[in-house]
């Protein structure tokens, strides 16, 4: 009989409950289960402890159940939708979700095993989005990257235009455009008369 900690039991219980759930509940329940696993991940990192093999085995077994696999595909769908808004206000949320997906697939179940067989390449497609338009994504200041993010999670540092003005960054992350407030030939803040 394996003894799991109360936190491990709580995480497994959320996965157990969702294992046989049907849509849309299986999608709506899944983020809470992810967060319970993430709290354990953060705890382990903070204390230098590791997953117990028994916990990993049981969590993986439950994650492979249909309700949780479906929940994962919806969770990935949210990551993909935010990634499609990476040049606007979606990038930070995309990074959070992408990191949590990476931790789930590194520690418990490979990506392809969660997804419909036709969509096993979907993660690579999303990753290409961060590279393709890297000059037009608002950079995230290093101090705003969560402490638990591994160095290997490169997407947080994908933006290449590191001298993007604060005005442009604010427009992207808050989803507005100052140019909406100015006529075509009217000088905007930060412009010189040569523009």
């Amino acid at each position, binding site marked *: 009989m394996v*003894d799991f900690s109360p936190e491990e039991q709580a995480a497994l219980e959320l996965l157990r409950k969702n294992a046989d759930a049907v849509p849309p509940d299986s999608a709506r329940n899944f983020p809470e289960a992810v967060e319970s696993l993430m709290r354990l991940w953060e705890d382990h990192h903070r204390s230098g402890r590791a997953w117990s093999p028994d916990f990993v085995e049981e969590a993986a077994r439950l994650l492979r159940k249909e309700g949780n696999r479906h929940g994962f*595909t919806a969770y990935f769908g949210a990551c993909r939708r935010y990634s499609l808004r990476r040049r606007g206000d979606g990038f930070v949320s995309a990074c*959070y979700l992408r990191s949590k997906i990476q931790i789930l697939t590194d520690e418990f179940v490979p990506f392809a095993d969660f997804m419909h067989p036709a969509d096993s390449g979907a993660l690579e497609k999303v990753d290409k989005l961060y590279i393709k338009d890297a*000059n037009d994504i608002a950079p995230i200041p290093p101090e705003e990257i969560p402490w638990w993010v591994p160095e290997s999670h490169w997407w947080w540092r994908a933006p290449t*235009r590191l001298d993007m003005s604060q005005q442009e960054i*604010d427009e992207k992350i808050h989803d507005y455009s100052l140019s909406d407030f100015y006529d*075509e030939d009217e000088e905007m803040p930060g412009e010189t008369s040569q523009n």
Partner: protein
Amino acid sequence: MRSRSYPIHPRSETPHATHTPRPEDDHRIDPQAINAKNMLEALAWAGMSEQEIAQTRGNANPEKRPWQRLCSAVMNNEFPEMGSTGPEAEAVKPAMAKALSFSLEKAPDFKECAYRYEYFMAFYNATLSDVEERHLHLPNVEQLKEATSQILRSEGDIRQTLKSDIQKLNELRTGNSASVDITLSKEEIVASLRKQAAIVGMGPDTSTAYHARKHYMELPASERDGLHPVEAYLNGLEKTIREGKVTNFKKGANSVNVSFSRNLPPGQGKLPKDGTPQHNKIFSALFVKKSGDTRALTMHSKSEPEGP
């Protein structure tokens, strides 16, 4: 008693683990030129011919403001599979074609086209999210086909909703718009904004409707129940300006930026899907031009550490 533990070994090996930015590339890249090029490719992908694109753009300079504003709307709100080939791309193209035809009805007013595109995309994203939640057993190509089918059927509803939003907006924001003298002191500017909170608007009607639809559900239920979304949103904006704390004040030579932030009742903020903390504030950014014209640029909820 804990069972035996083993060290965590991060097993992720990604091809881009060593990707680093190249500052010299940033200085060579002209963002407006890239945007314009990307936009041409996006329009062609969605099915517009070179002639149709040229006719639509007319004499507008592709690297100057109105066309660039439309570029931003299209590129910042990317359709799934945009630019790619294959069955998923073919499933999405009709939806993007519809978004473009809905938006370009107002050409050559490309700013208005941008607002219409953003409004349409808000509905598309909500539709796609709902389809993905309910049809979890389907491969993505079938989900995309279903989302396209639903959004094409929804065109009438989208038009009607936009019309209703603008009608409500015009009922609520009549008369003069807010104006503040930017040569005043910080205290005087803030006082003037609070006094005019009921008439601060967000500019063009379609853009205001977009922001309202996108964010009104982030207001507490008590501020929304029984109200039209646009009314709830503008009421929320007024309350934020009137009662909120000033969290940013920046005075330039030709403009002033002021942000206000108010607390949400505990547990009533938006619960983000990315696992970040539940939202506990409503935030609004205001902008005052040299002329005194004043507008709210945005209002939305956010999560912030509780201050002193």
